[in-house]
């Protein structure tokens, strides 16, 4: 398994180079896992991406490198200490450094001689391919999909030139992942939404959620869906609710700050029983916080957001595969129960790319609204039923009137202040949770069945936790286990209660300062986590960091 870092200032073309390199590595058979660390600026600063690749499934980034591709001097200063023994630093020879591990190439001059200074990045790509024992078989194919036709030939030449200017340093490893797909968490989520029949997406641009809107917009004509950039976050969610009410499957997406603005309308979807999917790609708050970085600190907010009480579901995405399938499930549950379903992603998952087994479209099932003959005869939009789910018709599609009201209402949807009707209608809505709880997915279990130490986590820390458990159990077989929640609200309790009863220690690993999952678990089950590993510096915890934390201090008593 190899790990390389590509760093420089914003605007130096890191994204483009990384995009090309990860495709080439994937085509060569590797499993590829790329994480992105960037500042909230368009020019300057220090940005970097880390590409980890190998012949086995990778679920976490690591913080030491076989190679550093430095587009500026700062990259060398900041990361050289993390270079492995036989690692290299590839840089242009005008960067002043006396690092013995530096491979200096006159890339800018070579690019100028080729006729375009901007192909220096491709020279570096060529050099990296050679350093890792790759061949040039996939270069033409990948470049065709990555650069515009007039620049194709010169970029291929540049890769060849770079390839010929260094010697092989690492051996190529044969992997079986060339037929897998590679995509970011946000793209996977967007693709899941399309597969679920999304017809209307409204959002206001907000990092790190904007990638979802961009991908959907790029596919809107082919996929026959409307993407609307709203004037504000409040408009975005009210539009999604209006579209859904009128029969078009709808979603809105944002990050925490935007979610704050959407909160009142979340309650509207709740009381009017309109299916809705809301995505929160979390970033560190409060307020503007760290706009381009990662955190898991919106859990307690979204499970209680909006005044009053109404049924909702919250699903945390654990990895790129989850992002696709759980998004489809979010739509299905929203339709079936006529509730808002909130998807929690975060910057780490949303912006990172990973290899994923091609999605199985045959396995997709969607719950569609069920309306009986009897319902048509005497239509009541909010009819009292055994499971609390009422017959939902689409306005204009039948000779029945469909009403929605943010006021408390009766079975017809008409405003009421009757005390009895209020209680009956509240009970009807809340009753939907009983059925929903039956179909909750228990958390994923990783590790030893009769573990002494039980880790609990949720969402995107899944990958780092999984890597940590693998490493730890190699040392002490079966001692460690982990439960990582995807469905998180309502909280599935069965497996947690079973595992926690036999473990000696329960430790929560979370990307926030207060241990929000631990709090939710305590509230719902009375189970108390004995220790916490909490990180809230805006950078995702790695498998290695979790191992280090677990083996150090009083946690290993």
């Amino acid at each position, binding site marked *: 398994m190899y790990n390389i870092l590509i760093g420089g200032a914003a605007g130096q073309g890191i994204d483009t180079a990384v995009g090309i390199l990860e495709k080439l590595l994937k085509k060569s058979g590797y499993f590829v896992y790329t994480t992105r660390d960037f500042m909230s600026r368009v020019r300057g600063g220090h940005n970097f991406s880390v590409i980890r690749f190998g012949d086995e499934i990778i679920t976490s980034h690591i913080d030491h490198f076989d190679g550093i591709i430095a587009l500026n001097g700062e990259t060398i200063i900041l990361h050289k200490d993390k270079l492995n023994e036989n690692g290299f630093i590839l840089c242009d020879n005008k960067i002043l450094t006396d690092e013995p591990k530096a491979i200096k190439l006159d890339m800018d001059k070579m690019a100028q001689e080729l006729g375009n200074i901007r192909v220096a990045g491709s020279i570096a790509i060529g050099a990296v391919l050679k350093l890792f024992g790759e061949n040039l078989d996939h270069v033409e194919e990948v470049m065709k999909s990555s650069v515009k036709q007039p620049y194709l030939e010169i970029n291929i030449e540049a890769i060849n030139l770079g390839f010929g200017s260094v010697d092989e340093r690492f051996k190529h490893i044969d992997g079986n992942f060339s037929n897998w*797909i590679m995509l970011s968490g946000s793209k996977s989520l967007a693709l899941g939404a*399309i597969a679920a029949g999304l017809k*209307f997406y409204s959002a206001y641009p907000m990092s790190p959620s904007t990638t979802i809107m961009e991908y959907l917009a790029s596919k809107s*004509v082919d996929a026959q869906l409307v993407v609307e950039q709203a004037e504000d976050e409040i408009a975005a969610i009210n539009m999604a609710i209006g579209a859904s009410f009128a029969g078009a499957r709808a979603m809105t997406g944002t990050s925490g700050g935007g979610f704050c603005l959407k909160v*009142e309308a979340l309650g509207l979807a709740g009381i009017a029983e309109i299916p809705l999917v809301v995505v929160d790609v979390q970033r560190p708050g409060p307020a503007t916080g760290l706009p381009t970085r990662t955190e898991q600190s919106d859990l307690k907010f979204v499970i209680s957001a909006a005044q009053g009480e109404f049924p909702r579901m919250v699903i945390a995405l654990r990895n790129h595969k989850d992002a696709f399938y759980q998004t489809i499930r979010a739509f299905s549950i929203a339709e079936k129960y006529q509730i808002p379903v909130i998807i929690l992603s975060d910057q780490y998952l949303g912006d990172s790319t990973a290899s994923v087994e091609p999605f199985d479209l045959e396995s997709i099932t969607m719950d569609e609204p069920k309306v009986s003959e009897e319902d048509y005869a005497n239509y009541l939009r909010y009819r009292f039923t055994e499971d609390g789910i009422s017959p939902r018709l689409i306005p204009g599609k039948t000779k029945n009137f469909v009403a929605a009201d*943010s006021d408390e209402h009766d079975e017809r949807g008409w405003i009421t202040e009757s005390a009895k009707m209020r209680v009956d209608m509240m009970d009807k809505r809340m009753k939907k949770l009983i059925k929903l709880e039956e179909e909750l997915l228990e958390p994923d279990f990783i590790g030893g069945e009769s573990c002494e130490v039980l880790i609990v986590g949720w969402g995107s820390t899944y990958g780092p936790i999984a890597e940590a458990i693998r490493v730890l159990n190699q040392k002490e077989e079966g001692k460690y286990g982990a439960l990582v929640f995807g469905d998180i609200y309502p909280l599935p309790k069965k497996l947690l209660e079973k595992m926690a009863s036999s473990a000696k220690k329960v430790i929560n690993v979370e990307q926030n300062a207060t241990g929000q999952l631990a709090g939710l678990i305590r509230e719902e089950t009375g189970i108390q986590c004995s220790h916490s590993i909490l990180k809230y510096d805006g950078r995702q915890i790695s498998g290695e960091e979790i191992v280090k934390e677990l083996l150090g201090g009083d946690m290993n008593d």
Partner: protein
Amino acid sequence: MTNNNFQKYETAWCPGCGNFSILDCLKTALEELEKDPYEVLMVAGIGQAAKTPQYISANSFCGLHGRSLPAAVAAKIANEKLTVIVNTGDGDSYGEGGNHFIHNIRRNVDITHFVHDNQIYGLTKGQASPTSGEGQVTEVQTTGNINTPLNPVLMAIAAGAGFVARAFSGDREHLVRIMKQAILHKGYAIVDILQPCISFNKVNTFTYYKNRVYHIEDDYDPTNKIMAIERAMEFDDKIPIGVIYQEEKQTYHEKNKVLCEGEPLLDRKIDMNVIKKFISELK
């Protein structure tokens, strides 16, 4: 069509409220246009005017205060076969919903927006609204309203609306005519309807409006924007009512590459082959 398609219901408005005639005129307009009530969607926010959808036989969406327009335009985007009509007040449309007012003019989705403008907050019992006159004393503006009133007609023309009209709840025949024109207009149409609030606005009374409004002349050219702006600014001793500005503009549906042809959005099916293509692009 019979005259009772849109039916009568018991209302919660004060006797003498301008809302009664606006509601009656709306029903008449819809009936005269031979609209099928099952294909009409009434949308409102919250407020006295926003109760309108509850008193008419049609589909209804009573959402959040200030948020009627986003829900209404999206419903129209989802199903263009619906006749989407928004009835809501001056606070809802120009205060809490001010941002949506500006930007939905730009979108130009084919919906009709009737603003019941009584220049006061009714449901919350008499505070200044965005259109309240300067100096008006209320329970909150105890020393008189110090804010300049918004001129929504002027604002709508400036923002690029394709149909802008002013009407008066006390002139029923005229109101029905304007409502019909607004509903028939292709694109976003706004009618600012002056109406008395007999409980909370003692300044802008029925008589106040009655003595000031006059019908715009038959030879007035509503396509002349400069003239329209002049008429829109006339809001003092004389208030012109009628279609102040009208312009044929491409609608949202005509401009949108997905909506410009084909079935209504909600009837379009997902093609799994398209998704397979998207997936293979990621290989």
